[in-house]
């Protein structure tokens, strides 16, 4: 009964939480069904779902940044000083 109720009445706040959790773990059957039902009629949450993937892709792109070689050299030199 609880599961049916959840499927029928899922608010956007919970739907968005489930979508966020779905980025990190497998969803339960109830979560999946409730979310699917919610998304049929909710344009805002459908947009949110797409935006989650945009955010994920943007975060991955941010990992291109590397430590500059001159920073690395200075740190290496200071570590050597400290150890000698």
């Amino acid at each position: 009964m609880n599961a049916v109720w959840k499927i029928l009445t899922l608010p956007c706040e919970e739907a968005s939480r489930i979508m966020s959790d779905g980025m990190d773990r497998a969803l339960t059957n109830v979560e999946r069904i409730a979310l699917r039902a919610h998304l049929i009629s909710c344009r805002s949450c459908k947009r949110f779902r797409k935006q989650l993937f945009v955010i994920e892709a943007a975060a991955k792109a941010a990992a291109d940044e590397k430590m500059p070689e001159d920073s690395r050299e200075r740190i290496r030199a200071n570590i050597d000083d400290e150890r000698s």
Partner: protein
Amino acid sequence: MTCDPAKWLEEHGDVLYRFALSRLRDRTLAEDVVQETLLGALKNAKDFEGRAEVRTWLIGILRNKIADQLRRTGRIREDSTERIFDDRGAWAAAPGDWHDPESQLSSKEFQQTFSDCMEKLPEPLAEAFILREVEETDYEEVCDALEISATNLSTRLYRARLLLRKCLEQNWFGEGVKR
């Protein structure tokens, strides 16, 4: 554990540097805290004893150095109390229609805006989001590094994503988004 800070620098330098840079937004400060972290790790290597991943251990030290630095410059950010959902759990401001977001991802300006948005996140959310989504660290390892439960991490990631979404909509996709 073989105590080899030069190897730590080699293997984890970029991760530590990115993490520091995204919190401090200053290359000199980022370099400083990474160096302090490695020297601090060298000094305390005997406390480590292989309890965790080296990277997790280094990130733990780095977090403290960053927190000290942020405290010095008075830049600790509190979580916003602004409500994203109303009392019935509906969007307080409905997400707009982002026009062709995939084509923006490679733009330098977009990446800058995204960095600015990450920088505005409150510390606990930023740490969780960067380790998990930028560095793609294992879920359990992020929990270890931040010393939080899996549920707590999922709550932080959720909140971070909501705030990033809002920030991007306001600062990049613009007020002109279709409702």
